[in-house]
């Protein structure tokens, strides 16, 4: 028998336990919108039983632990899928910029710079492709009137327009490259900050859990959030040890328990192309996903290819037009001058001597014959000449292939990214179904605890009355 005072204690403990239950529900309700929060539950067990003459008698209930509903497998998956999403996000962003900078847009309504659509009614293109077409059209135009100064001026204007477009596009893509390098460095900085935080959190969790042996739920929520943030940047292996989490990237341990052993850094691996390695490591990390890997992949893949193709196209245009032009004769009978200067998309320009004096344009194929058009006709016919350097394609075909390839890269990354979003959304829903807070559940729990609380209070009043009865026996 517990006796009346013992029963009074039982009632008091019961009140406490039910109140704790309401408090845990309240905590859940308060964090219903907290990102990364996993719902918590009060574990209640029966109090220690006492041996009595009639057998073991219970002593009520008490809250033993506050646990959280988390699924370790889903948490791991979230890290992996987050890394893949990070990679695709960064690729998509960079390729969107590249497509915009390339400036190739179909516009069926607008007329081109020279009213293209009004004459051909197929709409205009913007950007380099239109420039290339216009240049060859201007060559043709001059070939019908080789000595006309007006046609010469128009041709030189078109050519200058094309070279300017080449230069601008090349500069913009170069800037994109630089900004990708910059974002690598920034993201490595953020990743290092997260690594530091994770080591510190390992420490705090160790201390918290050592003091009373129960899980430090809220700190663990925070740690999982930081891990997921880090996973967006780099793919990593995470192992839970007694000292906390051990985090490694590509086999190199960065955080082991409370110690941050290493951190990430960017370095120039040659040609201004930044790579990522650990501070103590000499070679680049092999990153398979995460935004760092995505940025490196798109920079050295689709964008590098695009820049290279532009340079190849510009280089071939320069060399073939110059070769033809050099053999011609100007209206002043001079010969041997180049039409374009420069070697690639970045520095292609129209020979300044020609723009200063269109008379010097070498359109004629025979000395002294100003009405001859053989050279300028040969230049115009380059439009349809397949070049070995361009894989047996014409300059325009090569260029339109380049545009299509850039479009294809963006289109396939966009498709992958939206697929990945579906995966991540599904994963989040699954995690939510395990860890999310349900208002209905919490309200029901609250009612449950409230009723039990009321009942426990009734117990206390009953014992109180019994005590009164006992005390009232003596008067």
């Amino acid at each position, binding site marked *: 028998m517990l006796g009346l005072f013992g029963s009074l204690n039982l009632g008091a403990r019961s009140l406490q336990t039910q109140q704790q239950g309401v408090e845990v529900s309240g905590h859940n309700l308060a964090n*219903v919108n907290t990102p990364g929060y996993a719902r918590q539950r009060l574990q209640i067990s029966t109090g220690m039983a006492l041996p009595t003459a009639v057998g073991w008698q219970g002593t009520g209930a008490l809250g033993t632990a506050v646990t959280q509903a988390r699924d370790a497998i889903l948490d791991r998956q979230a890290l992996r899928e987050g890394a893949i999403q990070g990679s695709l996000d960064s690729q998509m962003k960079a390729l969107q910029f590249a*497509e915009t900078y*390339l400036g*190739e847009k*179909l*516009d*069926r*309504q607008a007329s081109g710079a020279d009213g*293209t659509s009004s*004459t*051909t*009614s*197929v709409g*205009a*293109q913007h950007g380099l*492709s*239109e420039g290339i*077409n216009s240049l*060859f*059209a201007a060559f*043709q*135009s001059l*070939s*019908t*009137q080789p*000595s*006309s100064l007006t046609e010469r001026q128009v041709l030189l204007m078109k050519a200058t327009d094309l070279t300017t477009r080449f230069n601008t596009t090349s500069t913009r893509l170069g800037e994109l490259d630089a900004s990708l390098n910059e974002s690598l460095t920034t993201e490595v900085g953020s990743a290092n900050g997260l690594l530091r935080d994770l080591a510190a959190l390992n420490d705090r969790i160790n201390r918290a859990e050592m003091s009373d042996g129960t899980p430090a739920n809220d700190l663990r929520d925070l740690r999982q959030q930081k891990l997921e943030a880090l996973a967006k940047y780099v793919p990593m292996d995470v192992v839970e040890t007694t000292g906390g989490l051990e985090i490694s990237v590509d086999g190199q341990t960065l955080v082991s328990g409370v110690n941050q052993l290493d951190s990430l850094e960017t370095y120039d691996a040659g040609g201004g192309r930044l790579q990522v390695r650990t501070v103590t490591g000499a070679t680049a990390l092999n990153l398979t996903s995460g935004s760092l890997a995505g940025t490196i992949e798109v920079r050295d893949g689709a964008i590098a290819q695009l820049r290279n193709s532009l340079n190849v196209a510009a280089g071939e245009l320069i060399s073939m037009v110059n070769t033809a032009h050099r053999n011609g004769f100007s*209206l002043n009978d001079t010969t041997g001058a180049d039409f374009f200067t420069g070697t690639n998309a970045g520095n292609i320009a129209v020979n300044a001597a020609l723009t200063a004096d269109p008379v010097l344009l070498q359109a004629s194929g*025979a000395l*002294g014959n*100003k*009405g*001859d*058009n053989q050279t300028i*006709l040969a230049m*115009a016919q380059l*439009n*349809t000449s397949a070049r070995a350097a361009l894989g047996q394609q014409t300059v*325009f*075909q090569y260029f*339109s292939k380049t*545009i*299509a*390839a*850039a*479009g*294809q890269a*963006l*289109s396939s990354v*966009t498709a992958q990214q939206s697929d990945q*979003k579906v995966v991540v*959304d599904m994963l*989040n829903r699954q995690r*939510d*179904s395990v860890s*999310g*807070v*349900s208002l*209905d559940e919490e*309200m029901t729990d609250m009612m449950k605890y409230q009723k039990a609380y009321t009942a426990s209070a009734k117990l206390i009043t009953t014992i109180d009355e019994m005590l009164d009865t006992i005390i009232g026996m003596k008067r």
Partner: protein
Amino acid sequence: MRITFSTFPNALVPQLGTLASRQAKLQTEAATGQRVQNASDDPVAMRRVLDLQAEAQSMGQYRKNVTRLQEVAGASFTAMRSLQKVSDRASEIATLADGLKSPEEMKIYAAEVNQLIQQAVQTANAKNRGDYIFAGTKNDLPPFTMALDANGQVTGVTYQGNDSVAESEIVPGQTIAVQPPGVNTSGSGPQGLLGDSRNGSDLFGHLISLRDNLLAGNAAGIVADHTNLAKDEDNLMQQYGLNGSIQSRLEVTAARIGDQLLSVESVVSQEVDADLAETLVKLNETQMAYQAALQSGASIMKMSLMDYLR
């Protein structure tokens, strides 16, 4: 599956996002009438359309070339016609000036022939947009120059052009020259308009000879000149015919380019243009779905156990 407080909003937000971006895309399609604008919308179609547009643009340029060549051919035809008149009149004079005419009459004819020579030189030096038409490719200088003696008689006409003419492209790989060189004595290349060694034509030489024979009253010489002038007339007739066939070829080419442009336009349209009816129906569907998502989401989210607790 356990449904929690955040399940609905978490699901609703991406659903609304997807529907909104679909609406934006369809709206852009409806507003521009285009299914493809950027390369990433449909890389394959983009490539095809870029190639087609390049083709259209170069055909547009060929059409401009044809227009320009038609202009030159027209100008050269006009000049040929007045040269033909000169040649006709000269033959007529050679026929009229037989041995029965008095030396005075012969002199009058001679004076007329002298005028005819000057008129022919003037006509043969015709220009189009600053270039001499019949000078071959040395078209910056007048092709024919006259030497006059003290009495104003033309003693010689020199050709200072050359016998090659510029050819322009009217379809890929095919070039055409629309005007002949003034004179060709090389024995090869395009036929000269007023003189060619292959058929013995030399209008100015024969005109000068006719005038001299008229002045001298050399009847036999005049008969020979008559024969020679017939060669010039034949030569001019040939040039006439050539010009006609060139003009009709240009006309046919222009018409064909027009047809090709039309067919390219329809192919481009198939690749790029949006089917407006389909787009609008889809847009309508998407709007309905958006509205349904908003309404159902709102009504589910405002409901909870709390409405029934007191």
